[in-house]
């Protein structure tokens, strides 16, 4: 639980401009170096350069690597929910979701977590919001007998920094 979040982007140096989107095929945009400030003002965090997200959250990104970005325009993301997963939550995706198996595979949604992936809602996030972006980490299923590869676009916005009114529009 994040209790005290600082104002968004209070220390990232340089101008913040729109960044190249992380590629869906899993390759980082050219010119990015882990632990460095990207050309576009984004900041990449990884196990060798730990960032603001606590370890349990960081590890949900592939390679525990994620990028801090500040949105330069209102942006629509997609949240998959159902069952024990509610419409409002910290996790979403930049890629439009179909729900069901497509989302379970791409976002590595383990059935035992209770997210039935029955529904998809748009999340309209306003300009200026700080997001943490990467790719969904693979997850083991059936006690290690199988694996969901993940690899889909994954966005995390801490609860203290989002507004429930963004969801469902």
């Amino acid at each position, binding site marked *: *639980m994040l209790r005290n*979040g600082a104002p968004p982007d209070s220390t990232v140096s340089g101008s913040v401009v729109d960044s190249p989107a992380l590629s869906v095929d899993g390759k980082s945009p050219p010119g990015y170096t882990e632990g460095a400030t990207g050309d576009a003002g984004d900041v990449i965090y990884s196990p060798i350069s*730990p960032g*603001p997200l606590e*370890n349990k959250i960081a590890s949900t990104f592939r390679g525990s690597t994620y990028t801090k970005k500040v949105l330069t325009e209102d942006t629509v993301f997609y949240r998959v929910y159902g069952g024990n997963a509610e419409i409002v939550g910290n996790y979403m995706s930049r890629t439009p979701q179909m729900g069901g198996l497509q989302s379970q595979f791409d976002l590595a949604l*383990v059935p035992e*977590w209770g997210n039935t992936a029955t529904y998809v809602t748009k999340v309209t996030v306003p300009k200026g919001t700080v997001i943490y972006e990467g790719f969904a980490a693979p997850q083991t299923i059936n006690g290690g007998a199988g694996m969901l590869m993940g690899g889909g676009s994954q966005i995390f916005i801490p609860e203290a920094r989002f507004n429930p009114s963004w969801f469902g529009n």
Partner: protein
Amino acid sequence: MVRKLECECAEHYEADIDTWQLFQDIKHFFEDQVLSGVYEDVPIDKPYYVWQDGKEKMIWYADKWYKCKACGCLWEFSYPDFPAHGEVRKFPDGVYKGRGY
């Protein structure tokens, strides 16, 4: 006659919470312990992770702390927010320590 309060702390361990069912089971366990008067729900006064870079700071807290009235053991309970797992940490001497990363 004073009845000595007995606890089950020695029989329980730290846990990584990777399923919704396990989360429910552990949550009910702690709630039952509080109802039976063995544990108390105590205020959380220390974070488990603090990150700071210049003026920017993020501070992460667990969801619950429980203190055993019998043996003094402190339990930290962080709810899962899947895909992020939850966690239970145990401090038998009652002295809290951050996660150290």
